[in-house]
């Protein structure tokens, strides 16, 4: 039984990627990173173990937000910035559904910033995919809340004077229980992150660095270019030391004196592999995850990708329905007659 009195069939069919394609041809610009993302999502879903009709994609407004039209699930294309509000209501109302949110940097972090932080702090089991291209694409090239300081755009011809958000750090600060980052061109990596996101129960942010070939082309070349990639990217893997660089000799060490993370080289200045911070996304305390998320904002540090945090806590919808079920159990004889005739009454005639 579902929460709304409908029967839900439990036998799971065997799906292929095609089962999740709506048949509508995506209309993103040629070369857009969104193609790679939808491809990975459609590949990941057959293995998730949820029936197609029990999956809902909800989006806001922006290039990324056309996503639900191309998925063969239930879907809503809603209002600018507001996707988390619809998703939250649906998830509280029907917790058995798997609800995904597709959003962009302007949608989630500018006009929708309030809904974003509250979706994260409530720990509703909502899986948010944030396509971060650091630009407004659908309105043709204005500065976004993730555009870098000094960025020249149509609305900042002299360079952007404001500091950007770091979405994983923001989500962690707001209390998200699953926070990850991946890149549109790293197909296999994205597949792994999506699988982990699907398996997590709780508020989930997956930031996808996504190239906009028209208005912000090459925004992530500093990470994806083969010549620099090894030194620029830090691949976080659960239980493994945080090492990077061509020969894997560079690493991240926690410096207890400064209480900061620092880059060290194994074999230099007495640094051994034991000094390197071992990645643990399951730490309940989000402090280290927050420090890692902020590395991408600091010059001289690599940009981490992978899962920052993956912690299981009771979700908002679980707690909500515990309360509701508790109220029902406490009053097994509740009825319409009792509802209407409650409180002080008096009779006339």
């Amino acid at each position: 039984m579902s929460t709304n009195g409908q029967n839900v069939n439990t036998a799971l069919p065997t799906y292929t990627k095609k089962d999740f394609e709506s048949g509508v041809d995506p209309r993103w610009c040629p070369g857009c990173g969104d193609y790679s993302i939808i491809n990975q999502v459609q590949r990941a879903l057959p293995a998730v173990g949820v029936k197609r009709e029990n999956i809902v994609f909800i989006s806001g407004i922006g290039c990324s937000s056309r996503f639900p039209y191309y998925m063969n699930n239930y879907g809503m294309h809603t209002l600018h910035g507001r996707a988390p509000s619809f998703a939250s209501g649906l998830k509280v109302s029907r917790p058995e559904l798997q609800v995904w949110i597709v959003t962009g940097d302007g949608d989630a972090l500018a006009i929708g910033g309030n809904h974003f932080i509250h979706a994260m702090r409530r720990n509703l089991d909502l899986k948010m995919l944030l396509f971060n291209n650091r630009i407004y694409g659908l309105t043709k090239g204005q500065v976004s809340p993730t555009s870098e300081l000094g960025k020249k755009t149509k609305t900042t011809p002299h360079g952007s004077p404001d500091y950007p958000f770091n979405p994983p750090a923001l989500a962690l600060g707001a209390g998200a229980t699953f926070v990850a980052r991946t890149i549109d061109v790293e197909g296999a990596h994205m597949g792994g992150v999506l699988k982990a996101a699907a398996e997590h129960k709780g508020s989930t942010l997956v930031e996808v660095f996504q190239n906009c070939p028209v208005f912000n082309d090459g925004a992530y070349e500093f990470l994806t270019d083969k010549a620099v990639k090894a030194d620029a990217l830090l691949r976080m893997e659960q239980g493994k030391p945080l090492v990077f660089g061509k020969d894997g000799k560079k690493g991240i060490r926690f410096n207890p004196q400064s209480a900061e993370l620092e880059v060290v080289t194994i074999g230099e200045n007495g640094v051994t592999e034991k000094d390197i911070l071992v990645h643990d996304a399951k730490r309940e305390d989000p402090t280290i995850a927050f420090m890692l998320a902020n590395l991408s904002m600091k010059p001289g540090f690599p940009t981490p990708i992978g899962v920052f945090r993956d912690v299981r806590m009771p979700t908002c919808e679980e707690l909500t329905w515990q309360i509701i079920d508790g109220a029902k159990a406490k009053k097994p004889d509740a009825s319409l007659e009792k509802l209407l005739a409650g409180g002080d009454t008096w009779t006339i005639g």
Partner: protein
Amino acid sequence: MSTQVSAGKHTVEQVEAVTIRFVGDSGDGMQLTGTEFTRASALAGNDLATFPDYPAEIRAPAGSLYGVSGYQVNFGAREIHTPGDAPDVLVAMNPAALKTNLADLKPGGMLLVNAGAFTAANLEKAGYKTNPLEDAALTQTYKLVPVDMNKLTETALAGSGLSSKEVARCKNYFALGLMYWLYSRPIEPQLEAIQRKFAKKPEFAAANAAVFKAGHAYGETSEVFYQRYQVPKSKLAAGTYRSVTGNFATALGFATVARLTGRQVFLGSYPITPATEILQEMSYFKEHGVVTYQAEDEIAGIGSAIGAAFGGALACTSTSGPGLALKTEMMGLAVITELPLVIVNVQRGGPSTGMPTKTEQADLLMALFGRHGEAPMPVLAAQSPADCFWSAIEAMKIATKWMTPVLLLTDGYLGNGSEPFKIPSLDELPKLQVKYQTVPNYADGAQYMPYLRDDKLVRPWAVPGTPGLEHRVGGLEKDSLSGMVSYDGMNHERMVKTRAQKIRNVVEDVPDVETFGPASGDLLLVSWGGTFGAVRGAAEELQARGKAVSHVHLRWLNPLPKNLGEVLKRFKKVFVPEVNDGQLAFYLRGKFPGVDPLQFNRINGKPIKIGELVGKVLEVL
């Protein structure tokens, strides 16, 4: 009309109806005193209506003019339409309360004051240069009864061990006890109510009960009063009653929908005066199938409700004017996706923060037209606190039957005001059917077309979890069949017109207006929403004076009842009283060219008074 009988040393005068106003500091417990006295009147079988009037400040500085909080109750043996015009009795707990309310008291009315609060400091805070209780004019105009309730409360609680601050907080029960005596109420139910209210703090239960009894005894033993009053039982229809405020009744209506349908009712909302109680009350109805969600803002309140509606819940959101403004973009989405939703707007004084705790009817045009694009939706307005119950059910019935958002207008006066609610039997409740599409609806037998309509232009409702009917809805204009995005201009025009026609079709569920009084005549009073009681009361009074005046009340504002145009034409004059600057009058002029209503517009944060309306009508007859 009154009769006198003798009872002990006091005579008892029988009166038809009485209006009492309790006023004091916002910390004096006047709302509690008023509600308790109201409950006693209800239990005594009187018809009644109440009007709480409180400041926006939670605890304004003690003794200040702007911190005065009031509660007016009108109860009687006859049918009561409003909380009463001018009070017959004013209970004033301090100088500020006296100063801000005295002008409303009927000449010759009883003025019961807590003389103990008329200290030099309090007089100064209220701006009195001399003590008004010593002013001869006051005793000439009113039946002044000064009682030092502070001292009498202290005496009653001597040796109780309570601090002087705690003792002072009990004095409202002294006033209540005195009023119980004056209106010949049995005290036992009140003593039980005190025990219930303070069950967890027995020392306060004992103290308040003692003070209440002291107040009652004071009436009997002091030589201040020469008579008592009794208001006989009213001729309310036989049945079992409870007292409801409009906001409680709205919540009760939605919970009833959950029971009637066996479906989840989902309320997504955000606290805002004077609508907050709907969210609060509904959060106590969980065992009946209600889910409440307090969102991060007004926008998310309605957003969560639309999300839940997509999932098949019977969804609603509650707010007041500024919140409705924030929700307008979302209402556009609900219109274009054609999902069922009820939006309750408990109107208050605007624009902007305006007068948040005061009532107004100034959101009518916003409700009808205040959206981007062509976005019509049914608009219904409750006419009394108890009618909020029926209106909530009716709004949800229309929303689900016609797959549309519905706007339900109430107001601060209805939301906070109370009246007896006759508890309906189950067969008196409307029949609600909620249907979900579970199989493909297209001619090929395989596809689901979310915008394939029935003969009434209603689209089907298929909800997540239904295999084979996976589909997408959204804010972009959609193909008139598949619901997929369509930029075809002619498709857009077809969709705009179809959505409008669907809402016009709702008229089949809108009852014709009933004319109260002769079917034609000199003047027709036309009211909507919360002014029903005052306008009906005025019509009765004018008819009693032999005037050819009738009354039509509109619960439905969109669509308007089919017969309204014809009814309007049968009267020489149409007169529209409203608590706004003429919004219904403006709407009627547009809808019925040739009809040019006379207007009476009161925008002072209070309901229209019967007496002033009667006077205005007499001027134009």
